[in-house]
């Protein structure tokens, strides 16, 4: 028997005698697709509707809403009313936040759980410990969408140098753990490029160089990784940097791995070679090379681009055949308009 089974129903609890429970449906209605609730849930939400009707804001309302949230963490009307109650009672929001820690861990994929935290932090204005809390959740669920978006909101909203300072190291840690984690790559873009310039990062040439070296090293580690390639493309587009700047880096990724590659102790930071055992050529590199050709716009270059797209369509990335054919057609238009 669980703890909640031994909790008395509100209907049988004298402390709630003064509240009139309100059922969801009238007796006559015959709803379609009904949910066959437990008695515990039905009882609790009947009393919730009762106190909403009277507008009560009290400690027992906090108990009731907490109870319902445990049974149905997505009940947004209950969250809304709980928040209104906390504010009306001038309640201890720090204690509320602590209470929420447990709920967030159990129900981390629920919108309302994260949104309630956000409302509390907006009131408390204590975002720094949240970063550690978020990191704890992400350790369990490394790609949780709400959690990453909440972290980004926190950083942007408070825009505090101390908070920003830890983000690049944090992303690097996450990418060491899993270089394919696209949520982490997106976070890096957010921190470095999308939400203004970080203190000390004002020389954008240096920033670009650092970021290019970072992403190239990660591509060299595991070339068949769309997250890294999308990041590379993203920063080049964002800074209006021609793709052709990376020609020397790209070419080794567009051919099968050579047995006569230079020995591994020869490091080239500008153009790190694919690591041992890489599966080459990789589709993203072929596409990238095609776009380098397209930047040229001369007929011969465009022909080369089209050949690469056809190679993708017929060999390397067959599922996207119709898309690569679209890219080939778009490439040909560059010649037409250049005549």
């Amino acid at each position, binding site marked *: 028997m669980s703890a909640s089974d031994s909790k008395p129903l509100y209907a049988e609890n004298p402390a709630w005698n003064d509240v009139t429970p309100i059922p969801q449906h009238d007796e006559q*209605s015959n709803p*379609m697709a*009904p*949910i066959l609730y437990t008695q515990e*849930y039905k009882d609790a939400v009947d009393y919730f509707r009762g106190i909403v009707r009277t507008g009560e804001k009290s400690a027992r309302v906090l108990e009731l809403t907490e109870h319902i949230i445990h049974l149905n963490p997505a009940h947004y009307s209950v969250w809304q009313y709980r928040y209104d109650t906390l504010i009306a009672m001038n309640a201890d929001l720090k204690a509320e936040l602590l209470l929420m820690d447990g709920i967030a861990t159990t129900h981390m994929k629920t919108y309302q759980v994260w949104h309630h935290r956000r409302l509390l932090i907006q009131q408390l204005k204590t975002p720094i410990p949240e970063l550690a809390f978020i990191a704890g959740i992400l350790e369990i669920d*490394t790609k949780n969408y709400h959690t990453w978006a909440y972290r*980004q909101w926190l950083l942007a909203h408070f825009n505090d140098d101390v908070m920003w300072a830890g983000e690049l190291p944090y992303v690097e840690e996450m990418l060491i*753990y899993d270089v394919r984690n696209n949520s982490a790559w997106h976070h890096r873009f957010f921190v470095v490029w*999308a939400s203004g310039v970080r203190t000390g990062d004002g020389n954008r040439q240096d920033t670009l160089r650092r970021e290019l070296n970072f992403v190239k090293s990660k591509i060299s580690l595991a070339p068949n990784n769309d997250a890294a390639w999308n*990041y590379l493309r993203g920063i080049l587009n964002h800074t209006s940097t021609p793709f052709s700047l990376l020609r020397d880096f790209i070419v080794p990724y567009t051919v099968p791995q050579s047995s006569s590659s230079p020995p591994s102790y020869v490091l080239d930071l500008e153009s790190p070679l694919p690591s041992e055992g890489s599966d080459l050529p990789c589709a993203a590199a072929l596409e990238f090379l095609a776009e380098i050709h397209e930047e040229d716009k001369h007929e011969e270059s465009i022909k080369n681009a089209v050949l690469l797209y056809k190679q993708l369509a017929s060999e390397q990335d067959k599922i996207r055949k119709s898309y690569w054919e679209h890219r080939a057609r778009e490439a040909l238009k560059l010649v037409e308009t250049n005549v």
Partner: protein
Amino acid sequence: MLRPTPIDNHPTPTSYDQRETERILSSLLSESPYPPTLNRNTHLNFLARALFQGFPKHYTAQDASQPWFMFWLLQAFNVLGAGLDPANKQRAIDTILKAQHPDGGFGGGPKQAPHLLPTYAAVSALAIVGRPGEGGGWDQINRKGMYDFFLSLKQPDGSFHVSKHGEVDIRGTYCLLATATLLNLLTPTLTANIPGFIRSCQTYEGGFASASQPYYDPDGNLMHSPRPALGEAHGGYTACALGSWMLLKPVMSDEEREGREGILKENVVRWLAKMQGGEMDLGGFRGRTNKLVDGCYSWWVGGCFALLEGLGVKHDWSAIDGEPQSASVPESADADADAEWDDIEDELYNTKALQEYILIAAQVSSGGLRDKPPKNPDAYHTSYNLAGLSTAQHRVRIVEPEYASMSDDPLLISPDESSTERDTRRRKVYETAYYWKEVESQSRVLGGMKNRVNATHPLFNLTVTHARGMLRYFYGQS
């Protein structure tokens, strides 16, 4: 010999999960008959059980999504070619109306606070089962209350809270715009600044995130930059963004449509195309880069391709330099069938492979469709897998609008708009929403006509018939 996703001698948790999924999915191929069969009747029974017997107690966690269940179940019924009898239609109407809040808008259930998402679900469900007149549902919608509810949620950056004190994200934007379009509630006041918000949600990957963070200058003006996206590009949010963009196109300024506020279309196309899984994923769609395929993205991502033409992405299928349309050499055993499919493939994704995923991986033999094996089916995945099957089978496109004369609507008179401006605006909105048609000669049904499902309106995820019925009524067209 099927090729798994390459690991480059550097396994990580992502690649472990991907390999495991590929193992499970590709093992289905040897077990499944080909071509696969849509088990229409078992799915209808699955849906009917939910509609008439109800949901077991673990669905308590969905108690705030009751209108969604009505929409998912009723729309799935529709796509499969079934409908309710008049008595049950009335029961459905009555059930849905109970979720309407006295002040306007629909909530997740009777006596729940109004919320944009169940509002969209309820109105969409009423488009399916409702009608004008007493007890028909349509006339019982409190349009004025709903409009006021919408405005109460509007934020200066063009976004909307989904409910009072609720989260801000682009799902709310889509749900509001789709509902407002169907019910003839779009006004300049309502739509101001929305395009800029949508644009700000596009990430460097090309897809769209849940929301963006506004920054204001000391005078309180919204800054163009920075305006970072919150969360990575995601299939659900992308569907909402593109649907919203299409719905707003008729009322956008040129600057909003094409200028620096315009969305980057080729980036969208690339991201959408890259979301399709490979052969060991059976051609299903994932929702984010490097995550696993899931049947619901058959609609959220697959369904977006139907919007591309309307968004201005041209893809004409004339020959490249005089060569045959299909540049590839089909390698599968069924080379003739592949070549035939290639000749009619007019989408920028592999429609045949998506149908294979849905029919082979997503279908559950005991009824319903799922994310992927070994997960259980549910109403949400059943609905969106079937919507995805519909979009993969049929081409529904915008056709030339015909002139539509507007009757006036005193509810929506705004002081800074002349009646001519109002009529012109609403006509354009109506035409954008109404004039979609199935191009029947270009259907491509894997496994033959026994697997055919009904076509779906790309903007609303309703049949064209149902969308048009509601539009005609609320725009005063006979």
